[in-house]
């Protein structure tokens, strides 16, 4: 079981992600964007880690989405291999059209772009109280059924995870008619931002970026492609948790982010 951790110019979480993937018992290597794209077929799954590919020029993820390696990744997605895009990886998957992955494309080998991760706008009591880059620990509620999505395959519905975010463009918006209903009805909304009791409150600081319906992560229709703004690799070990979290004092325990990588492994085992 071998996982490629994709690296674009400006990616900055590839080594932590590599550690996380290996720590759950999968082989892994960093796959640079300019390697022959056909070599991707030798891998069983893919992670696009966070960072600032191409310095977020134009808008986050769009320049990387035009790289030939992404066309090869679309083919791998098409045959059901799991792909997890974290933060900037999520932005790249959205700009590629792999998420939500409903459109058939415009005839140039690219899928239709059905949503955007726009600039953060933090709203409280109807007023913008903050905007732009933000990093913090957030609470996530797993809203998809277990086994629905590769990156949350082994997580039960309703589970709460505390994982950090760090981004400036995570505000999920769409003008595609009926898309939100479809995402909800088909269990494609994987994680939502919530309070520590799992309540979905559409107010900053619970909704940390203004995202529609507090969405933090979605998967494609088939469930093999997951995009999430929070960074599970930064909450992989309990010692990575913030000082106020009592689990930090038990460093041998796994952190909540580990479940995402364990899910990917389990998804591959089940679908092999």
């Amino acid at each position, binding site marked *: 079981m071998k996982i490629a951790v994709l690296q674009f110019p400006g990616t900055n979480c590839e080594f932590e992600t590599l550690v996380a993937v290996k720590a759950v018992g999968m082989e892994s290597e960093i796959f640079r964007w300019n390697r022959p794209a056909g070599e991707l077929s030798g891998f069983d799954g893919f992670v696009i880690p966070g960072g600032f590919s191409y310095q977020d020029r134009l808008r986050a993820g769009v320049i990387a989405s035009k790289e030939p390696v992404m066309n090869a990744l679309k083919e791998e997605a098409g045959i059901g291999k799991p792909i997890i895009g974290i933060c900037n990886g999520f932005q790249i998957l959205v700009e590629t059209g792999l998420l939500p992955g409903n459109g058939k494309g415009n005839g140039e080998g690219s899928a239709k*772009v059905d949503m*955007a991760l726009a600039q*953060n706008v933090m709203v409280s009591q109807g007023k913008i109280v903050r905007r732009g880059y933000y990093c913090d620990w957030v609470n996530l509620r797993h809203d998809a059924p277990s086994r629905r999505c590769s990156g949350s395959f082994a997580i039960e519905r309703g589970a709460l995870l505390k994982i950090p975010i760090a981004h400036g463009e995570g505000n999920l918006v*769409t003008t595609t008619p009926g898309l939100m209903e479809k995402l909800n009805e088909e269990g494609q909304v994987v994680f939502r931002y919530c309070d520590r009791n799992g309540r979905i409150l559409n107010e900053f600081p619970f909704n940390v970026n203004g995202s529609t319906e507090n969405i933090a992560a979605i998967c494609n229709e088939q469930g093999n492609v997951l995009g999430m703004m929070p960074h599970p690799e930064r909450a992989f070990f309990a010692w990575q948790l913030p000082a106020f979290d009592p689990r930090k004092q038990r460093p041998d325990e796994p952190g909540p982010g580990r479940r995402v990588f364990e899910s990917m492994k389990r998804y591959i085992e089940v679908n092999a």
Partner: protein
Amino acid sequence: MSMNRKINLRVWLKIPDAEAATVKNTLIRRLGYGNVLADVKKERLFSIEVDSGDPEELAKSFAKELVNENKESHIVLIDELKFEEGYVPVKVALHIEDGEAISIRERLRSRLGFENVVDVKKATVWKLYFDTLKPEAQMAAREIAERLLINPNKDSYEIMSQ
């Protein structure tokens, strides 16, 4: 009846613009415009609506706040917006709520005392230089806007007249 005036600030970098270079590179190397596209430049555009005051003097004050003269140049256009010949100007702006434009308006009004500021709009103008004739260039510019410059879920674009 009040006659609001619109102050347009076109702002561009005096130093090399890495973002414009990346867009040009992507259009040529990844999207196949090498035969028609000669160059790409970029400007920021602020359109500030005021309900009183001398627009020329106000424009100077706004430029002090919004333009960093160490690295940027600008021109002011009052109640009009025109561009030079030789390129196709494509204006890209958010069609969702623009938090930065709102912040600029509030900064000008509340912190800096320009209470005559009614509205602020912000956009990016991509200046696409083509080797082809104008009709083909306009068509290519539309295609480029839709394939790369905008995400239609949050941005809209307009080909500006010259």
